[in-house]
């Protein structure tokens, strides 16, 4: 310690003039308001700005200059031997000199800022709360940490350049290599919207850089001593060795974060189910991975899965679409640089072929496309920025591309209907070429349009008008019927022609909800003062069965795991309703269904449930046996 203090104080003594110059510079802010053209800014603001600017510039310049000279110049000019011919431990030479450089730099900056802050009674921290420097309590320590980082970086660079050793070639190769690898890891995390992990990575790399520079300088002085080339060798070996380890750790951490499996999911944010077959798409937060929320395409029968590069937070992508036959899945993945997202690329996966892997198609979309997949999965239709296109997935050929009528469509839904026909359902905001005002929007219309893939012509079939509210609407699983909410009633239309078919209403209760079932039947959720009633209608709209539940329960339809069976959930109580004989069977008291009423017996969705702590199970409704799909748990 005696040696450290001796070196430290000697360095301060030798460079004491710097502090005197800083003290003189601290007077400049008081002269600055006298400069013509600054009066309109206010004297205090000018003083603050000039003092802060001078302080930052002084700190940056001194850090670079002192870092480049305190050890490196002594080494190259063969003066370091003075210390090494004295009874000084190597560490005290290194630490004493670098501590003195840091003290001089921060001291000079503080001296420049001090008179202004004393005269104006200002809080220095207030200058650093712009958000770029982090939260207030950490702002000044954060800025102060940059000084030793700059000093050490400048020192390392100076030793490398001054030594004129061949190790400079290694430096020139290692620096960009490590930068590229770390940037790559950061890109991967940002691309997957793992922002917390990316922030941690940046902090880790910054800390690793600081420690590596510190260790490199220490080892350089300890092992290289007065030999410039040997010093350079040890500096480079330690620096790049440490940073390489840090880089590998960063890469490993990024790989580990992005290598989450369905078992790591600690909850489910969104999911989609194939209408037929065991495949589901599920996304949610992964355990111990910050805000990373991976999306998986998962075979619930075999636990085979694919990680999709579709961050749930990327609103443009819109999830996975399955073909009606359950063979194909398509989804969008973002392309381009993280900061300049390009078009989203369409990928597809053959779900029936063993060993198949996701395949990039030649189709990509700008903006936020609304997609539909043909029943056999061979065609994809999309509405992007007022344009409807139909492409063949096999070769990316565009079969049709039409501009939609000039209107603002807030919602659009596409449905293939047999070979060569596509129906586009659009919610219109324009009437007679005029954009509706805010009040009129509540009287939206739905336009039914039919695209003939043979001639590529779009034909307006019908517009359903007079909808008094923002329409809530649904299509039957076969796409043949359209259900629209109209006040307390539900209006049923032919989805291909727009012809009204029926009006569903309840005289003695309040019709809360209305959903299609897999077989085309309809379930009505009716609220009474003391109870909730589920009414099940056949596809022919005849009443098939009624079930009553307690008033406090919020009823949710959750798929049809077998013909004639309907699963409903009230909170975590899951019951199976037998539509044939009207019996009710409790399936579980601690699960919540993931599926929807449209998930029929052929879909895994009707058998998926989530526990209170986020675990996802496949449950056999017949036996009640469970198999974990996503472990969740935290």
């Amino acid at each position, binding site marked *: 310690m005696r040696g450290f203090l001796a070196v430290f104080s000697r360095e301060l003594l030798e460079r004491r003039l710097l502090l005197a110059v800083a003290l003189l510079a601290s007077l400049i802010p008081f002269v600055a308001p006298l400069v013509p053209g600054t009066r309109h800014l206010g004297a205090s603001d000018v003083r603050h700005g000039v003092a802060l600017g001078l302080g930052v510039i002084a700190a940056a310049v001194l850090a670079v200059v002192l870092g480049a000279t305190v050890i490196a110049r002594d080494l190259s000019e*063969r*003066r370091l*031997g003075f210390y*090494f*011919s*004295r009874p*000084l431990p190597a560490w005290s030479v290194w630490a004493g000199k670098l501590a003195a450089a840091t003290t001089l730099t921060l001291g000079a900056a503080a001296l420049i800022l001090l008179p202004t802050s004393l005269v104006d009674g200002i809080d220095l921290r207030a200058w650093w709360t712009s958000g770029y420097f982090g939260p207030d309590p950490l702002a000044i320590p954060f800025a102060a940490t940059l000084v030793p980082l700059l000093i050490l970086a400048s020192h390392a660079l100076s030793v490398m350049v001054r030594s004129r050793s061949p190790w400079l070639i290694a430096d020139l190769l290692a620096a960009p290599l490590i930068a590229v690898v770390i940037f790559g890891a950061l890109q991967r995390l940002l691309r997957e919207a793992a922002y917390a992990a990316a922030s941690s990575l940046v902090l880790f790399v910054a800390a690793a850089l600081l420690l590596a520079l510190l260790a490199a300088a220490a080892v350089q002085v300890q092992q290289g001593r007065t030999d410039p080339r040997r010093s350079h060798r040890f500096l480079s070996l330690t620096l790049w060795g440490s940073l390489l380890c840090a880089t590998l750790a960063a890469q490993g951490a990024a790989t580990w974060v992005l290598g989450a499996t369905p078992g790591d999911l600690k909850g489910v944010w969104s999911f989609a189910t194939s209408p037929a077959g065991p495949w589901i798409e599920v996304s949610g937060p992964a355990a111990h991975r910050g805000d990373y929320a991976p999306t998986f395409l998962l075979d619930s029968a075999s636990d085979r899965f694919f990680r999709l590069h579709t961050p749930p937070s990327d609103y443009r992508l819109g999830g996975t679409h399955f073909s009606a036959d359950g063979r194909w899945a398509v989804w969008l993945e973002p392309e381009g640089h993280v900061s300049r997202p390009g078009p989203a690329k369409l990928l597809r996966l053959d779900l029936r072929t063993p060993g198949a892997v996701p395949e990039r198609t030649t189709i990509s979309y700008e903006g936020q496309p609304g997609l539909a997949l043909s029943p056999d999965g061979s065609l994809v239709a999309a509405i992007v920025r007022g344009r409807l296109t139909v492409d063949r997935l096999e070769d990316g050929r565009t079969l049709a591309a039409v501009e939609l009528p000039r209107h603002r469509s807030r919602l659009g839904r596409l449905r293939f209907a047999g070979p060569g026909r596509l129906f586009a359902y659009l919610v219109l905001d324009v009437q007679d070429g005029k954009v509706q005002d805010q009040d009129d929007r509540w009287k939206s219309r739905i336009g039914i349009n039919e695209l003939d893939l043979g001639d590529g012509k779009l034909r307006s079939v019908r517009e359903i008008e007079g909808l008094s509210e923002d329409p809530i609407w649904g299509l039957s699983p076969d796409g043949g019927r359209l259900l629209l909410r109209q006040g307390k009633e539900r209006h049923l239309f032919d989805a291909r022609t727009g012809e009204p078919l029926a009006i569903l209403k309840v005289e003695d209760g309040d019709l809360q909800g209305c959903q299609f079932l897999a077989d085309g039947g309809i379930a009505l959720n009716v609220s009474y003062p003391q109870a909730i009633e589920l009414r099940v209608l056949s596809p022919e709209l005849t009443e098939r069965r009624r079930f009553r539940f307690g008033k406090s329960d919020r009823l949710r339809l959750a798929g049809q795991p077998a013909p004639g069976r309907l699963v409903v959930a009230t909170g975590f109580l899951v019951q199976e309703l037998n539509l044939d004989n009207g019996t009710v069977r409790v399936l579980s008291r601690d699960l919540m269904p993931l599926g929807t009423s449209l998930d029929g017996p052929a879909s895994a969705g009707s058998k998926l449930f989530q526990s209170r702590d986020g675990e996802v199970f496949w449950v056999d409704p017949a036996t009640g046996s469970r198999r974990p799909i996503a472990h969740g748990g935290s």
Partner: protein
Amino acid sequence: MSAIAVEGLTVRYGRRLALDGVSFSVVPGAVYALLGRNGAGKSSLVRCLVGEQRPAAGRALLLGRDAWRERAAVLAEVGVVPEEPQAPPALTARQLSRFCSRLYPAWDEAGLIARLTRFGVPTDLAFGRLSRGQKTQVGLALALAPAPKLLLLDDPTLGLDPVARKAVFEELIGELADRGTTVFMTTHDLAGVEGIADRVAILAGGRLVLDEEVETLKLRFRRISYPQEAAEGRSERLAALAPVAAASRGWGVEAVVVSDFDEERLTAAAAGVPGGRAGVEVSALTLEEIFIALSGAEGGSR
């Protein structure tokens, strides 16, 4: 315990071998002079001794301690005068003295100032503004101020004028007379060192080719010269006396240097040639002449 013990010391710079298994020791109180041509490895040896250079093999012990591992502890008892005068250029001799005084257990500042005054070195002038000779004198004064047990001097008179060189050696002689400090020095100043060195070693091509008491060395080496006209067959007979370290020719005189001179063998060898012993002169060599003979064009085999 030896003041200095060097064992199998090897130093490499890349592929170049600067020191090749050098071993020697210096007894306490001795003045040991290491001689060698430029590039012989002297400075590498000194850097190893002060713990600035890590040897590729072997070790260097100062006062019984490893100079690389325990450099700071060792140097508390050792004064070092490097080949190039080194000190922060902005500091004066007094400031340097004050800095160094914090590092040593004992520090004779008054003695240091007195010594510099004797040298005629200004104590309040920045080190960077002193002449080379003055810088060396400041370095010597700083090295002597802690009253070291061992003094290491790396060519301390290099580039000094005769007056400054004389002052350095006088100071050393005084130090030796007063305290009996062990001195290890590398030098090219053979005339200067001849009067004070007890033992001398010669380094050539990274190897130690000689390590001997100065007195026995000077007794062992002789120049044998004879007229050139009587040289017929004489050179061969005289050369049989001992290995010829070096030979010279000029002014009608043939001369050889023998490293293990013996009068009786010379007489016997001269008896068999015309003229016999007559005309053959035997003379002693200076340390410089021995050094040149050993380190000359022949490369210096013993």
